């Protein structure tokens, strides 16, 4: 299985290459990609140089252009596609029917991957992307159990890529407007979720209160670490009681699922975190490289041993185990 690693900067890209990534994914510094954070991502020149560096080390680069193109402004997404192809991208990761259609017609030789943001969660949806645009790989949404992934693989010849580590969307990707409901900024349109620009922390009655767009997302006792207020990882109240009604502040660590994912026929494993620093990326990539080596040697898969790297220091295997639902 290929190991696909994130890079938000040239330094992270180089760190991931040196740590043993098989491929890097990254995006341009604008709203065309779903990690459109300040100070992150690649200029056109960075992209050309980053791809050249990776290629010199035998590592592929996939360019994520995976937001949904703004009506009346398609040229921005089209030029991102043209420039990524020109820079030598090994694959484009696209979510919007408009961008897939453009890329398939304009660059018929270019390898196209269907982004997780497209939410292709079954063989019929995958068939649509393969038949319509010649997609060669689909990044599966984080809603499927391993047996369900195996069932998909039995019905498609399309390659599949799955997330194994990092931030965990609990909603189906590409189908979530929670962030824009609270802040006006959405993953699909602006490429951001629960943006830092709309986050505030305040002290109230001895507690730390985190807010997003003015809505309280969590309250922490003095001795409790105050986590980032990602909307779906907040504590809320319902008639059944209050708590983490969507998901605890955990992140995904599917290292123990690697044997099952390989048996299911998954092509590639993806690490989330283009917003992370180079030290984080290098450590996570090395840990998964070790896990894959152990797997190849027929040894039991160790947990990645990355507890300290996880959000809220707690991790889950998410939907890969059916009981999560």
């Amino acid at each position, binding site marked *: 299985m290929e190991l696909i690693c994130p890079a938000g900067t040239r330094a992270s890209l180089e760190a991931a290459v040196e740590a043993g990534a098989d491929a890097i994914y990254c995006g341009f510094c604008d709203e065309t990609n779903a990690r459109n954070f300040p100070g992150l991502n690649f200029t056109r020149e960075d992209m050309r140089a980053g791809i050249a560096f990776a290629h010199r080390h035998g590592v592929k680069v996939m360019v994520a252009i995976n937001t*949904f*193109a*703004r*009506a*009346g*402004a*398609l040229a921005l997404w089209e030029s991102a596609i043209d420039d990524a192809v020109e820079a030598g991208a090994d694959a484009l990761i696209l*979510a*919007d*029917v*408009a961008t897939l*259609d453009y890329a398939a017609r304009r660059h018929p030789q270019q390898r196209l991957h269907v982004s997780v943001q*497209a939410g292709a*969660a*079954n*063989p*019929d*949806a995958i*068939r*649509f*992307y393969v038949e*319509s645009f010649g997609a060669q790989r689909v990044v599966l949404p984080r*809603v*499927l159990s391993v047996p369900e992934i195996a*069932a998909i693989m039995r019905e498609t010849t399309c390659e599949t890529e799955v997330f194994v580590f990092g931030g965990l969307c*609990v*909603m*189906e990707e*590409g*189908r*979530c*407007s*929670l962030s*824009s*409901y*609270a*802040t*006006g900024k*959405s993953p*699909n349109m602006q490429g951001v979720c629960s943006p830092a620009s709309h986050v505030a922390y305040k002290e109230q009655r001895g507690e730390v*209160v985190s807010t997003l*767009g003015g*809505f*309280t*997302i969590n*309250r922490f006792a003095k001795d409790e670490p105050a986590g980032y207020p990602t909307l*779906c990882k907040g504590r*809320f*109240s*319902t*008639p*059944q*009681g209050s708590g983490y*009604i*969507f*998901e605890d502040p955990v992140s995904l660590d599917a290292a123990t699922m690697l044997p099952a994912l390989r048996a299911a026929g998954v092509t590639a494993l993806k690490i989330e975190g283009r917003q992370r620093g180079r030290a984080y990326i290098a450590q996570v990539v090395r840990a998964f490289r070790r896990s894959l080596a152990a797997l190849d040697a027929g040894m039991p898969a160790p947990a990645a041993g990355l507890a300290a790297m996880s959000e809220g220091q707690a991790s889950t295997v998410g*939907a890969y185990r059916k*009981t*999560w*639902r």
Partner: protein
Amino acid sequence: MQLTLGPVLYHWSPERWRDFHYRIADEAQVETVVVGEAVCSKRAPFKQDYLPGVVERLEAAGKRVVHASLILVSLARERRQTRELMASDEVMVEVNDLTCLASLANRPHAIGPFVNVYNEATARFLAARGATRICLPPELPLSAVDAIAAALTDTAIEVFAFGKVPLAISARCYHARAHKLSKDNCRFVCELDADGMPVRTLDDADFLSVNGVQTLSHSCASLLRDIPALRQAGVASLRLSPQDCDMVAVAQLFRDAIDGRLDAAEAERRLGAVYPGIPFANGFLHAVPGHVRAGPGI
């Protein structure tokens, strides 16, 4: 400008669901009614026995009937339901996931608000493959509605104009989770909340609503004041999403506002009496946070 009644998103009892549609057939001023289960495949069987009668009554009343497909299709059961829905040429399907497109080929169909149509190129692609109606995602600002409707003059463009706004779909059931049950053994606790389970912040502010695997806004979309701008954009139809209130009265208020019999402010005041206690919002259309009430007259 026409009116479309969207599918009932909540898990109402089968009899209530049937009677609701009977009354819509007999009394509501809407041209199109979307029926079926879009949210949870486990709920679908409850409606099956009553569906033919509901369709017959709506069609006898002159309504166009459209059948909603599931929003999230991942389980074998969900694929089977989706395939069965598309099996009959007689049925007009509302596609809520691109899963359907591989088999609908070029048969005329509608695109529902859960398909990511964010721009004119995507809309054109879908129209070229048989989409005759497209209900745009509720998240879209007016500028996008404008650009899409201007580019697709032969396709009926619809916007989500009334109802709690669907914001997310998941494989996980939050109703079951709140009741400490698993999804597979959920006991259909979502039936307890005909208008969604309220989700409040820890500061006791209204925020969201949970409907099984779906999350919606607490506020209720009302685009009554935006009707002139939507008409100007070339929007063909407004979607009214059923809430636990008198939807015949809701449809009448929208009809009266569209036809100029009521001014928007008065219509919205009356709407507040029909669906009391829930704030109205239209922020998405105005490119500000979705929970905000913005625009003319505010």
